[in-house]
């Protein structure tokens, strides 16, 4: 079981209100990702759930029981830290067994669980090594191993992949997703990388300045962003946001169109000149200077024969325009 409920949770450091008030429900078995720019309070929120920080007001319940004032050790949660936070003086085996030892578990059962975790994580050959003798990816696996042996009610991940190189990050991302599928345990994952959020999450919580901007499945956030912030944050490259007369003509303050929803067509309604063209092979990203509309990013599939200085006409796809009002809120219908 791993249902976590936050009710008007607030956190202030002195006069600074890092989290002015958050209500959130995390269901058992869900993979929830907290995403947002740095300083948005996502890590603080995770630490509040973990119990590593005291909350200033509100309440946290885990599986229906009030955990607001429980110490971290009593909450039944396991955490994987950004820096891995392995015990440098212990072997991998002892690192993984540490939470079991703290729980006073029978040594034979400890051994069985450590062996099992090492098997899942491909660490069997490294059990006698110290963390200092492992690569970044292996250390991350040890940190995950230390978390899974306890069979916690939920896992908390604090930007666990940010210290790894790009290739390793992709493979660890898959491993964590697979782990979630096999364990079916609640996972809360903090990241500033929207690609990680989109690929791993059942439910994404977009945070900005300590507030929840939107909660929803990855595709909901992509297709129906509630506001300009979410629209700009989710999706890569970023959504084009157009203000001025063109937006007003569509009856809104800001008009949004994703780069992949702009077609290059001879009968396009917008005209512009190609600035920078990034050729990725599978896609081509064009920065088009469209005069009064500003610079528009266009994502064209495959290789297009356009270069710097070419004039193109762009057509937004039907039904793909997003409209936002003065306050940045989405106008629907």
């Amino acid at each position: 079981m791993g249902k976590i409920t936050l009710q008007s949770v607030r956190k202030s450091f002195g006069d600074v209100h890092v989290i002015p008030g958050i209500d959130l429900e995390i269901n058992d078995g869900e993979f929830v990702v907290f995403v947002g720019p740095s300083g948005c309070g996502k890590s603080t929120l995770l630490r509040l759930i973990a119990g590593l920080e005291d909350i200033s007001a509100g309440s946290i319940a885990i599986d229906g029981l009030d955990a607001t004032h429980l110490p971290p050790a009593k909450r039944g949660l396991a955490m994987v830290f950004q820096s891995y936070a392995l015990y440098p003086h212990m072997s991998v085996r002892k690192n993984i067994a540490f939470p079991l030892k703290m729980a006073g578990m029978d040594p034979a059962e400890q051994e069985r669980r450590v062996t099992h975790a090492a098997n899942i994580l491909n660490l069997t050959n490294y059990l006698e090594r110290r963390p200092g003798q492992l690569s970044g990816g292996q250390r991350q696996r040890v940190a995950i191993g230390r978390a899974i042996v306890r069979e916690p009610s939920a896992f908390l991940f604090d930007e666990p992949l940010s210290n790894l190189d790009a290739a390793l990050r992709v493979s660890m991302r898959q491993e964590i997703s697979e782990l979630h599928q096999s364990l079916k345990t609640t996972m809360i994952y903090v990241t500033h990388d929207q690609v990680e959020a989109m690929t791993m999450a059942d439910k994404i919580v977009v945070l900005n300045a300590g507030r929840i901007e939107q909660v929803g499945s990855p595709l909901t956030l992509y297709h129906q962003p509630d506001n300009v912030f979410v629209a700009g944050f989710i999706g890569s490259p970023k959504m084009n946001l157009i203000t001025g007369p063109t937006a007003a003509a569509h009856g809104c303050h800001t008009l949004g169109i994703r780069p992949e929803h702009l077609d290059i067509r001879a009968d396009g309604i917008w005209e512009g000149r190609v600035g920078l063209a990034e050729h990725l092979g599978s896609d081509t990203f064009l920065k088009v200077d469209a005069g009064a509309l500003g610079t528009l990013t266009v994502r064209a599939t495959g290789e297009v024969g356009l270069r710097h200085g070419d004039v193109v006409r762009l057509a937004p796809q039907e039904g793909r325009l997003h409209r936002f009002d003065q306050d940045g809120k989405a106008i629907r219908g």
Partner: protein
Amino acid sequence: MARAATNRRKTINTILAWSVGLLIFFPILWTILTSFKTEGDAIAYPPKFLFFDWTLENYSIVQERSNYMRYLWNSVIIAGGSTLLGIIIAVPAAWSMAFVPSKRTKDILMWMLSTKMLPAVGVLYPIYLMFIKLGLLDTRLGLVIVLMLINLPIIVWMLYTYFKEIPAEILEAARMDGASLKSELLYVLTPMAIPGIASTILLNIILAWNEAFWTLNLTAAKAGTLTAFIASYSSPEGLFYAKLSAASTMAIAPILILGWFSQKQLVRGLTFGAVK
């Protein structure tokens, strides 16, 4: 070409390092050599480096004339005692400053260090008078207290920098793993802090062992340490270089041997924080 250049540079560096090392070590080497000379050879000009009549006479005379063991024992008790007492006070102090710092922590550290900026002789009279009143003059207890106080700022600083290097996330991980405060201290913090505490103890023993100002001024016959033992050979009635050297050699030998065996710890302790 490039390899030849690096090789040459390596050779030059090696020669330089050895020269500097020998230069620094030379006074100690000369003292040891002189201790094996006759008084005549000791003041001979030009100085005799290795080709003189080697003799152990000085050592036996020094041993006869003064009770080396008593001074040694005083040194051991005073250096060891002041270190032990200092560590008992400094570990909790540095601990709280590193892990639960307050707004004033930096100021307190600075204030502690500032006491080292005053020349020791500036407080000699007050301390001397206090010692007379308290009956601590020429007692081991008195010296243990004074040397502990003298070195306390340095040990607190050293331990503070050590403890600071222990990442807070590891302690949080232990808490998440279900460790109680006791287990956190026992299984995580202490094993990680021990190397730091060990180098601090070592450095403090060396500092206390070699301390001369307070030991000379506050002791006489009873609580005199090896520094007082050396000083007693620079007598006004004549220069006895060879005997003085023998006394010095005997005084520095124990700490030299201790330092030699623990040099790895010591170097790590002295460069900690400076080299990542």
